[in-house]
């Protein structure tokens, strides 16, 4: 799900036949404005990827601990909490 949203964010800033948003010496400002893709969503995506990595790291470490306690990964057997 994370990746679907990340792709969506990239698409928000994309335009057809866009160029990378790097202002080079060879490109005039007008051409840059007309053709470059929006760099801001890319900045957002890299942040959200890092956050996703943090969540997955925490998730895996909790899962390992859960396996130590319950001896299984079966979510039907990890049910001590009810009500």
């Amino acid at each position, binding site marked *: 799900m994370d990746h679907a949203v990340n792709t969506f964010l990239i698409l928000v800033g994309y335009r057809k036949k866009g160029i990378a948003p790097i202002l080079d010496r060879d490109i005039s400002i007008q051409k840059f404005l007309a053709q470059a893709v929006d760099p801001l969503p890319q900045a*957002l995506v890299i942040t959200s990827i890092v956050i996703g990595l943090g*969540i997955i790291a925490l998730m895996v470490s909790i899962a390992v601990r859960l396996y130590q306690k319950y001896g299984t990964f079966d979510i039907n057997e990890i049910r001590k909490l009810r009500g």
Partner: protein
Amino acid sequence: MIALPFFVIIPLGLGFILPLLEKWANKKKMVEWLAFLGSLSLFGLALAMVGKVGIYQLSGWKPPLGINYVLDGLSGLMLLVVSFISTLSIMYATKYLEGYRDRGKFYGLFMLMLAGMFGVVLSGDIFNLFVYLEVAAISSYALVGFNRGAEELEASFKYLIMGAVGSVFILFGVGLTYGYTGSLNMADIYQILATKPGGSVVMLMAGFFFLGFGLKAALVPFHAWLPDAHSSAPTPISAMLSGVLIKVLGVYALTRITFNVLGAPQGVTDLFMWGGVLSMLVGALLAIGQEDFKRILAYSSVSQIGYILVGIGVGGGLIIKGELAIAGLAFFGGLFHLLNHAIYKSLLFFSSGSIEYRLGTRDLGQMGGINKVMPITGSVGTIGTLSISGIPPFSGFWSKLAIILACLLGGYYIVAGFTLLASVLTLAYYLRVQREIFFGPLVDLKKKVKEVPALMYVPMVFLAILCVVLGILYLPTVRGVLFDPAVDILKEGNKYVSLVLGS
């Protein structure tokens, strides 16, 4: 407003220093003192900010371009609540956590959570808000499983999955908003949306935000993780999660985005109202059947969050109808209930923790007569239960009264009826709590039970005094300073815009 970034800098810095201090220098007492002094200084800073407004531009970029921190009435109120409850929680934790390992890591995570919450409250940039929200959420996932027992880990995992799904919804909402308006500054988005035709895209954004923040605020039907997480966490964390985290990440962010960014579109306020009514009733009904003291408190949080949302939703509905005075009353009721709930729910969680500390159980059947053996815990717990069930002299009554009055004056008779019904249900399950825990015969225990140490009961006494005092000071003093600026920000979205963009 040079002081604003310190709300994030101090806890963020402490969050990294404290675990290192414990690991390398092994200074346990110093860690505790630093954590306490840090949060106390933040409370002092928040008190100094009461009644002030202003913005802080990061790196000097002007508002529509750069990221900025915004202090207005609403965020000032939230800063005060968060820093106050966190100071008392740390005070309580010093004694409660005595037997725990890795206390430096505990305080480190606590401070990171605090930094995230202050960031959410202050941020004026919608993506920045999301990042801070994740900072607070990830540290709270880790804190819930801090005991590393089987049940704690299970609760933490459940909370993590639900929280991550909620975050994805919020991120998608942010993406949609950026795609439609081309701006991430919250005030700027409000202005752009005011000129564009609204309609289905704005509704879609509001829907995604409602789903995401609703998951964080544990509204029914997204509440399944809350009773597990809040009852498994160490008690000071339970008090933080129930007292402030669900309000900051859930209610505050949802309210801010709906009213000050999307401009409170018609229909969304009804969603607030009916979502609130549903949470209120389902939370209260589920709480009645519980046997575990902390689970009762957790379900009661679901129910009380419902009250807050009903207040805010009714206010939003009345703005659309054009009845601004009654809308102000409804917003006031919702925000006052938010403050009250933070106070008495942390009080009740503290007293449940004290009882667990001495008796070693949370089962209602295995306790009784606490008033006789632990007089201070017993009496403050009784005040907390009376206040949350809305008995007249205490603070809980006044905020419920304001919400119900606003519903009646605004013509929402059915909502008012449901609110009254939920109030009666709340009274029912707290009377049961009182009968089985605080009064009644002493359960025969092998070990001798005595009062908890002073560091644990002093925060509870503070909160209990506030429960009484806020009820008495209701109209003249508190309202004018604390609530009126917050209510004004919700009533008029333009105010937020003119504060940030300075037009």
